[in-house]
């Protein structure tokens, strides 16, 4: 029997090794030398030429791989239904053929596309998510390095980036390679879309002010717990909770300048749990948990139970998103059948200040997003593609991508674009965001400059705009973004961080919930050191140094 099996197995093994031969096209894309594209006669003496429309005299078609945002797919069959792309085709003469993977399968379809060398002409994707890193794709020639093209044909993006050196650093790889047309947020107010929120009406009822320091928070949470702000005669209030499938208790970490991941303060990288402040953070959280200021079930609270806790008037404070939570809950209260809820008010408040009096955040997104539109080696019209993409960053492109079509989705009032009722009060009952997606995409994501104004105009409630402000004003970022590991760095980090992260998450919650006594804390720190955290910190420091030294 064993002989039979081993015979079969060896047959199979041999077969599989040989079966592969000649079946898969080994990708031998020629490595496009960096500057050899157009030894053309275009004189690039005074920078890139301005873009003239139409871009092509004979219409061309470009294939673009781009996941359709769910808010757009509710109202469009493909992006070609969107007014923006129809108008772009009229203005530029370039027709786009879209490949929209289902949202869940975007990564899989992209990886398959790369693996089978069946590339679209342009790809819009979150490039930090690619196995092996995008730098490898560029050096292997699958993604085109665009520096020369930008110099010659992309005046708008070139100007945008040179006017904002920080944006330039974020957009390029460490060696200065420019490869993608990203989404750029034009205001720091947009860099954090979630934050602490509190029931303003409860604060008013109990004559309290919004908490500023950790001690304030302690007092406010206690008041919520004891003084029955929801007025039902029962002590059923939950002073603080959150949706644990999305956020964690680490949101309070920045008040001690820490979190359960890498941090950087003034250019120096550290790992939260190794910092002295982390112990104070954990101790305070444990104290709050013990005194029932934090939801005892916070760890098992998923989206549905989070929602029901907040909407049924049990929660005083939480960390949540703007549209997904603040607007949604407020809207549910206003349109719900329970009249008492109509005056419930949620506001966003800044994070509690650290011991040095400053506000810190770990949730800061980079100005230049990690996703972007790249041009691949399959593209036969690189020059035209660059011009097409660059147009979006110019003055007309910005209007078109953010606001849509003049006269349909917006009108000019006092020289400023104002959204029309077709968007704001759609006759078919579409929400504002969905209605805007009939016209254009900047409000979700895509290559463009995303403007603060469009966010302000599309908020359902004024509290949302105020919240954005509260969450980002004078707030210092401690999380690491926009860093590019080399291949070896990536491998070394991957070796240990999986284990370390599991360990840290487990121990943190055990300490907070009192399942592990705090006098074991020093052992906890020692164990992390044994797991090799110092090497990881050094790697991240190297990455940060390279980033900071970029010109």
């Amino acid at each position, binding site marked *: 029997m064993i002989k*039979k099996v081993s015979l*079969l197995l060896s047959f*199979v093994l041999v077969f*599989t090794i040989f079966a*592969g031969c000649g*079946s*898969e096209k080994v990708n031998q894309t020629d490595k496009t030398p960096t500057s050899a594209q157009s030894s053309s006669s275009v004189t690039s003496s005074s920078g890139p030429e301005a873009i003239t429309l139409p871009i092509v005299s004979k219409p061309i078609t470009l294939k673009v791989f781009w996941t359709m*945002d*769910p*808010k757009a*797919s*509710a109202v469009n*069959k*493909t992006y070609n239904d969107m007014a923006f792309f129809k108008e772009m085709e009229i203005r530029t003469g370039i027709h786009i053929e879209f*490949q*929209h*993977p*289902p*949202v*869940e*399968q*975007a*990564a*899989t*379809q992209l*990886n*398959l596309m790369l*693996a*089978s060398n*069946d590339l679209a002409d342009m790809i819009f994707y*979150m490039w930090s*998510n690619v196995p092996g890193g995008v730098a490898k794709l560029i050096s292997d020639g699958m993604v085109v390095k665009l520096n020369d093209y930008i110099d010659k044909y992309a005046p708008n993006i070139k100007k945008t980036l040179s006017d904002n050196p920080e944006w330039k650093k974020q957009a390029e790889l460490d060696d200065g390679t420019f490869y993608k047309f990203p989404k750029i947020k034009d205001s720091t107010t947009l860099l954090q*879309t*979630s934050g602490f929120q509190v029931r303003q009406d409860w604060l008013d009822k109990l004559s309290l002010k919004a908490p500023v320091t950790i001690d304030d928070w302690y007092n406010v949470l206690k008041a919520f717990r004891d003084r029955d702000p929801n007025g039902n005669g029962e002590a059923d209030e939950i002073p603080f909770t959150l*949706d644990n*499938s*999305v*956020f964690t208790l680490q949101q309070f970490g920045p008040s001690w300048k820490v979190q359960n991941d890498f941090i950087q303060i003034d250019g120096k990288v550290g790992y939260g749990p190794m910092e002295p402040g982390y112990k104070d953070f954990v101790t305070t959280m444990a104290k709050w948990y013990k005194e029932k200021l934090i939801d005892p079930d916070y760890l098992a609270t998923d*989206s*549905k*139970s989070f929602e*029901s806790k907040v*909407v*049924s008037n049990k929660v005083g404070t939480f960390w949540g*998103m*703007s*549209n*997904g939570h603040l*607007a*949604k809950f407020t809207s*549910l*209260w206003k*349109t*719900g*059948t*329970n009249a008492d809820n109509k005056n419930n008010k949620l506001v966003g408040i800044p994070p509690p200040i650290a011991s040095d009096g400053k506000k810190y955040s770990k949730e800061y997104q980079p100005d230049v997003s990690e996703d972007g539109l790249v041009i691949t080696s399959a593209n036969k019209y690189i020059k035209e593609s660059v011009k097409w993409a660059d147009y979006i960053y110019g003055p007309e492109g910005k209007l078109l991508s953010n606001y849509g079509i003049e006269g349909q989705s917006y009108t000019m009032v006092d020289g400023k674009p104002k959204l029309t009722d077709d968007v704001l009060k759609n006759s078919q009952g579409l*929400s504002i965001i*969905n209605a805007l997606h009939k016209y254009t995409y900047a409000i*979700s994501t895509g290559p463009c400059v995303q403007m603060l104004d469009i966010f302000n105009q599309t908020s*359902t409630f004024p509290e949302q705009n105020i919240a954005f402000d509260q969450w980002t004003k004078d707030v210092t970022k401690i999380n690491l973004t926009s860093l590019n590991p080399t291949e070896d760095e990536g491998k070394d980090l991957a070796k240990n961080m999986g284990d370390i992260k599991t360990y840290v998450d487990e121990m943190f919650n055990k300490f907070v919930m009192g399942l592990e006594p705090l006098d074991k804390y020093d052992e906890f720190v020692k164990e992390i050191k044994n797991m090799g955290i110092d090497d990881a910190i050094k790697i991240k420091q190297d990455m940060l140094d390279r980033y900071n030294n970029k010109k």
Partner: protein
Amino acid sequence: MLKRRSVSEITFDYFNIIFLVFSVVIMIYPFLYVVFASLSDPARFAEHSGLLLSPLSLSFDSYKAVFDNPNILNGYKNTLVYLLVGTTINMALTTLGAYSLSLRKLKMRNYIMMGIVFTMLFNGGLIPTYILIKNLHFIDSIWAITLPSAISTMNLIIMRTSFQSIPASLEESARIDGANDLVIFARIMIPLSIPVISVMILFYGVGNWNAWFNASIYLRSREKYPLQLILREILIQNSTDSMMTGAAASDDKSLVSETIKYATIVVATVPILMVYPMLQKYFVKGVMVGAIKG
């Protein structure tokens, strides 16, 4: 023939019925929950937790939202086509394979079985399969949906077991009469295996109805999307669960409520639930009796 039941047998029967009724109640509950939730007013449902015993403020808003999606009716049509074509291919290949492999006279039988079972556990992964489909020019076609999973090895094995338990005497008498394998298969084996065949049609049918993965990888035109894929997209619009979106959590939800999730499930499952009762009548006892006498 009068059968007298003993006291213990009567007690057993009563307890059996009570137990089964109890089981049914706790097992239909999740489904009732889903139906009630889908018919509830979104705001009232949001604040509710715990048992749900009836719709909260009856409202058809969620269903309206689901059917407003232009792709739904198309999704139904596509799924029906994939179901019919797919199940036919499944049943044809599986029954042929199961019967042939049930014949003990085939010397290669065991080797082939080993080879087949091997594939249940080992496979090459998505990349080579994708490249194969691409090279066969099946991308964006119905063949990419139905062929890669044409045979479920588990179903094949179950069916083979069932064929094997049909008494050999029937086969032998037919052979003596001069029938070849195909005739025996069609005229004897299949009619005798109606219960198992009905079960397989059910299993494959449900599988094809619920299928979305192959479609999500191989289809390019949204007009060809099956129902499940469209519905998953609706669920994603509503979900903060990063496992569903695969991306870092961002503030990317429209103001759509939980009840839509439930309306989606009802829309997706009610049609296929109708199938089982229709197939039930084939699970009839006594099919064998006539055959042996003949």
